[in-house]
């Protein structure tokens, strides 16, 4: 089971990106380089629960590893969120747009980069608490995180 999920993670497009683009920090790849006996064995397999609430109210619950991005969670669990992550986490689209609760948004570490804001500017239904899923890294603190996935359809496009 563990082996299967490892294979799936390694063969996902995301891990390609991590290898060649230095943009992500997926824990599974870290494990590839570092011997399995790390100093923090307890952390290694700790899972974080997240849920995605789609625009039609449908709720998808999934688990990710610490260090995974929300996009990793969608890809690794093959979640049925249409069109999510078109550019595979390279900050060149906004298809992984998610909306957080105010408190969650504010407790996320780090600044939102200009490049992420640039892509968010193109997203439908942009809010003050919008982020790109590929840029949100899971930590223990975020266990139980719930994000909204807004509709990608907008008839009043300019």
């Amino acid at each position, binding site marked *: 089971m563990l082996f299967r999920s490892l294979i799936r993670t390694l063969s996902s*497009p995301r891990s390609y990106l991590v290898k060649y683009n230095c943009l992500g920090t997926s824990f599974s790849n870290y494990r590839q380089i570092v011997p399995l006996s790390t100093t923090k064995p307890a952390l290694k397999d700790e899972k974080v629960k997240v849920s995605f609430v789609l625009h039609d109210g449908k709720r998808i619950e999934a688990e990710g590893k610490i260090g995974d991005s929300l996009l990793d969670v969608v890809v690794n669990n093959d979640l*049925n969120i*249409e*069109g999510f992550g*078109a*550019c*595979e986490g*390279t*900050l*060149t*689209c*906004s*298809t992984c747009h998610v909306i957080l609760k105010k408190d969650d948004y504010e407790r996320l570490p780090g600044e939102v980069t*200009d*490049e992420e*804001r*640039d*892509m968010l*500017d*193109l*997203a*439908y239904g*942009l809010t003050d608490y919008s982020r790109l899923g590929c840029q949100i890294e899971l930590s223990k603190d975020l266990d139980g995180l719930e994000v909204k996935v807004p*509709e*990608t*359809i*907008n*008839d009043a*496009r*300019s």
Partner: protein
Amino acid sequence: MGIKHLKVVARMLSTGQNNPRVCIVGAGAAGFYAAMHLTKNMANVNVDLLEKLPVPFGLVRYGVAPDHPEVKNVINQFTKVAQHPNVNYYGNVALGKDVSLHQLRQHYHAVLLTYGAEEDRILGIENEDAKNVVAARNFVGWYNGLPSDKDLKVDLSNSTAAILGQGNVALDVARILLSPIDELRKTDITEYALQTLAESKIKELYLIGRRGPLQVAFTIKELREQLKLKNCSTIWRENDFKGVEETIPNLARPRKRLTELMIKSFKEDHKKQEDDLNQKYFMPIFFRSPNKFLVNENQVLTGIELKCNRLVGDKLEDQKCVPTGEMEVLKCGLAFRSIGYRSTPVDRDLIFTPYGTVANDKGCVTVDNSSHLAKVYVAGWLGTGPVGVILHTMGNAFHVAKTVCEDLKNENCLDNRGGFEEVRKTISPGNNEIVDWKGWEKIDKHEVDQGKSKGKPREKICSVKEMLEIAL
């Protein structure tokens, strides 16, 4: 393959119901996103993707700039769609040439047109056909290896060029012309374009818009990239920014951030350094409309006569420009027209709007609705006009595909339709050169192999004939 055939047999044995057959014409972003939605939401649907070229992905392959490989990652999602057991790809089949819309409507339950907008809009001014007046569309096709544009003659021997238009295509063209050549060598730009660009003499590039900084059509990512280009300074005109900063607090977020970035760059006040031979200059000009192209006795471009404009109207983004009566002459040896695209009416049954799109109501095309003919739908730029990034095309394609699904589910009993096997019989025997997905995979592999020796992600094959030789 075996599984696929078994599935077909199983389907035929299990029920008397006919599975819905959908034909999608045009294998670009809109076509693939629509196919994605259909296969995810209708288990028994059969989707045939028809494409005029032997190769798939439309503007993702031939429009997206070579230095934006990340944007092309979406090809991985599209490839999964194409490999879905209920999806078939048929390349080198052109609507209006090999098949008619009427035929498709006979053999499918729904026909979705997603063949995009392939013509560029013209200005309709004097000397537009002069030598060195180039459609940005063709230039983009040229550096990206589009078969119909591969022989374009591009003359980069003059030091000054101008782009008419201020959208993302205009900025793509600017970036390709101003980027250090070594940056481009790592991309999948065609080898002949690389050679021509390596010898380019262009030092100054104008970007001309008829309205002001508050109405530009390009997006912030593209501008940021342009401003960060190595060995390139951006020089704005001071008069163009009068009163612009004051409006910033009243702007909505995307426009606000874009305007702030322009103001920031404007205040940095780059000056021309005549002694620096490596330095190039990007020079946006606002409030100017081309009046006519100026030519010499050999009909070669020497400059552009520009009409000066001012804006009228209350709402910033809807402001219209009116000429002030003044004129300005801009000397340049090369001009790119980048003012938008329009679709072509490839089939006589299609009704077009004056804007160059297929007349439609939320993706439903109004053609004669005899009950035995399939309904016709349109998605992507063919229906919406050439606006927005891939995300917008995705949203539109999902939306229209949803309507297709609902309509098909509401049909009580679908009659038996032959799909592509029937259509194939009507294609003239001269054209048996239909490329399936396996054929594309051969081309893909060949291109990637060819690229390897040059340190590029791929070297595109630019001739249809050669594509067919590899695929078949």
